[in-house]
């Protein structure tokens, strides 16, 4: 469903060239939830943005449902793929009510029966009619993330890209959102990519996990092998050990 082949992205900041993504390749099959883990600056978000067509990328380095991204896409192609970001506060317009936020994509795509669709999308993410006419600041962090997910799903996409969707949330709210994502991906038969710096979060939802470091994909392994500690690369093992908590033995001398 998603093919990434030798994708490289370089940003030019003044005279400095930042090689954010270096020759990354992987494929995500239909219905799969694929995970990408790495520390900050390792290039995770840049890979997602390239897949979403938000960055100029060389032809054929990203293909979605068999078609190259990068070429200009039609409205229906853009509708196929939706994005959820880490900070729902920044991605929701502060002066729009939940109702307006959810109506906007329907209006852009000229979809009829918006009123009923908005009500259904809210129910789908566990929000009620009482939330429909509130502004983002009148919602909790978890409720805002539910609105962002509802907005992403209201166009009934086939692909959902999730960039650190629970990193700003408390653990109990994170549990609710991760459960919600797990339920919705089944109900909507979504193909998704989940990016996080938190190995436990990615291992919870994904069967196959790519480990990124400094722009490169250092290892791709399935979650069972990860749990058993059967990582090939030293960096993956270090990440795994650190994610299990502090240990006096590994402390610096």
């Amino acid at each position, binding site marked *: 469903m998603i093919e990434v082949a030798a994708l490289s992205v370089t940003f030019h900041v003044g005279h400095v060239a930042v090689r954010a993504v270096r020759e990354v390749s992987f494929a995500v099959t239909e219905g799969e939830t694929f995970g990408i883990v790495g520390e900050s600056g390792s290039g995770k978000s840049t890979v997602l943005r390239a897949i979403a067509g938000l960055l100029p990328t060389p032809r054929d380095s990203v293909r979605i449902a068999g078609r190259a991204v990068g070429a200009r896409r039609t409205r229906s192609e853009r509708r196929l793929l939706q994005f959820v970001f880490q900070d729902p506060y920044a991605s929701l317009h502060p002066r729009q009510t939940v109702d307006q936020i959810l109506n906007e994509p329907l209006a852009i795509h000229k979809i009829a029966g918006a009123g009923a669709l908005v009500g259904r999308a809210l129910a789908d993410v566990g929000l009620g009619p009482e939330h429909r006419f509130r502004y983002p600041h009148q919602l909790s962090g978890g409720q805002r993330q539910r609105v962002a997910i509802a907005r992403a799903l209201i166009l009934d996409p086939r692909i959902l890209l999730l960039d650190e969707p629970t990193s700003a949330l408390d653990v109990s709210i994170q*549990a609710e959102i991760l459960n919600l994502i797990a339920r919705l991906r089944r109900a909507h038969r979504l193909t998704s990519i989940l990016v996080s710096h938190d190995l436990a979060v990615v291992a919870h939802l994904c069967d196959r996990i790519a480990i990124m470091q400094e722009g490169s994909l250092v290892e791709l392994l399935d979650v069972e092998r*990860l749990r058993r500690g059967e990582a090939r690369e030293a960096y993956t093992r270090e990440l795994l050990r650190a994610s299990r*908590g*502090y240990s006096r033995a590994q402390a610096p001398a």
Partner: protein
Amino acid sequence: MSAAPLLEVEALDVAFPGRGRLTHAVRGVSFALGRERLGIVGESGSGKSTTGRAILGLVPWPGMVSAKRLTLGGIDLMALRPHEWLGIRGRRISMVMQDPKYSLNPVVKIGEQIMETYRLHRRGSRREARRRALDMLDAVRIRDPDLVFHRYPHQLSGGMGQRAMIAMMLIAEPDLLIADEPTSALDVTVQNHVLGILDELVAERGMGLIFISHNLTIVSSFCDRVLVMYGGRIVEECAASGLAAARHPYTRALIAAAPSIDRPKAELTTITRDPAWLQ
């Protein structure tokens, strides 16, 4: 642990008046701290930071603080006058804040700030202070201490700023360090290096540490003892290694809600809050 605790807190209360009602941020919190690593965990708004600030006498207006007892090595902190705080804050108790933006002076270079802190509390020569500041930056794993020394706070990334602040808080070698989410902005691999530095200070210099965090994995693996806060109260106290066997339903729910690498869960447990937890 020696007989007389370093810090004693008894029946600490903090309330913020506002819009015609009081927010009770901290309610009847009591604990004693020795030369040990004490963790405080809880979700946002549970009163962790406010507890730390109250110990340092830094609860902002219009917050109201009361306590039956708040002592550091026998000194009554509740009775300190502003000028007396100067000998305590930064010197005997330091606090690493959640957000380095609020603790680093934006218009002074990092190196100068650390040197100033050293000279304020340790009275060495500028040369001595400079050497100690560079050593400290190196100790918190800043790769190029010389470069960072000459930077302003806004020129550092979040993780780097956090480490610079930790260097500044530790250079005066306080008796008690209150670290409020000191590693939340750091990558896991760097996190463990910073924890290693704190660990060393507790072990070698006998510093007491209050480690505030929302991360149960870190707290249970790093601390000796843990206080679990909910709605401004301590609902449970236990040995960090015994956290998995915690008894309070809130603590148990927190553990069950977290995804785990080693114990896969089909579905994560969500928390059903019981009003009785606030009693």
